[in-house]
């Protein structure tokens, strides 16, 4: 009787508050499984900034710090600098990383802090009830772009992976998706690799995970996965944007 799949020890026993079908739950599993498989769960310290996933400090089975909105990369910098042997990760949403926290993420990458950033891009603010995020797609309706996002005045959505891949210190930059099991498995490999980079001291790693927000997109979880595939992936192409070996 071999186990094909079971709940990861990297997660606490807490039941999450996430909405039905929210891919935060999937991303949490991948991070937890990666920490366990790499044998570093006991040395891990996670940073959970404001957003739907702030309560991740109750869900990851390792030391955690809650952080102010957008400041997780700075908090993670502080932890890693005084505890270089710990494995430090920040788990951030798109409102957090791509809006209020852009300076922090760019400069953590610029200094090539040896941390791992898990960036959940679901093109909307979830916790506060569905407002437009910097990653909201053109034409996408949200509570603050009720006629659909307009280029004029609201700008085009930010492509974080491409943006950070221009920063020399960003040693590993990859964008993956969580919309089906095949992509979830690829995402797992990317997250494993990002943590391995940290273990090997290679510097700043980030994995951008395209994700769904069924409740605020107003779609069923299954339809939301389809919407992601048909609308987000064309604008946010999947792939590896930087590897530690490439110098720029």
């Amino acid at each position: 009787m071999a186990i094909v799949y079971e709940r990861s020890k990297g997660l606490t026993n807490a039941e999450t508050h996430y909405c039905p079908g929210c891919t935060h739950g999937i991303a949490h599993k991948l991070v937890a499984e990666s920490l366990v498989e790499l044998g570093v769960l006991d040395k891990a310290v996670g940073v959970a900034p404001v957003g739907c996933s702030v309560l991740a400090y109750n869900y990851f089975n390792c030391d955690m710090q809650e952080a102010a909105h957008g400041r997780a990369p700075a908090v993670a910098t502080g932890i890693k600098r005084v505890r270089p042997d710990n494995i430090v990760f920040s788990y951030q949403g798109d409102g957090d990383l791509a809006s209020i926290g852009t300076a922090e993420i760019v400069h953590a990458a610029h200094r090539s802090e040896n941390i791992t950033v898990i960036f959940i891009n679901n093109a909307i603010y979830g916790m506060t009830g569905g407002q437009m995020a910097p990653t909201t797609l053109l034409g996408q309706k949200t509570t603050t772009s009720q006629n659909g996002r307009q280029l004029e005045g609201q700008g085009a959505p930010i492509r974080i992976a491409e943006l950070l891949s221009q920063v020399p210190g960003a040693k590993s930059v990859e964008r993956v998706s969580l919309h089906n099991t095949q992509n979830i498995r690829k995402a797992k490999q990317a997250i494993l690799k990002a943590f391995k980079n940290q273990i090997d001291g290679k510097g700043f790693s980030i994995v951008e995970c395209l994700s769904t927000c069924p409740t605020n997109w107003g779609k069923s979880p299954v339809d939301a996965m389809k919407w992601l595939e048909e609308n987000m992936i064309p604008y946010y192409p999947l792939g590896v944007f930087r590897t530690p070996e490439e110098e720029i």
Partner: protein
Amino acid sequence: MAKGKVTFNVDRCKGCELCAAACPKKIIKMNKTKINAKGYHPPFIEEIEECIACGMCATICPDSVITVEKL
């Protein structure tokens, strides 16, 4: 002969149906006759002998409700 054993931690399920959509053999259905502790219809499998123990359902489940074992 079923290749896999699938157990659902029924009361942790939020009825999102992602497992049903992900199952390549289409054998996972939502049990309309039952309501779990959270008030959702939990998933169940009728034709377990069709199960190939691929684990796709467990992989996509956001709440780690499903455990899959290879027989």
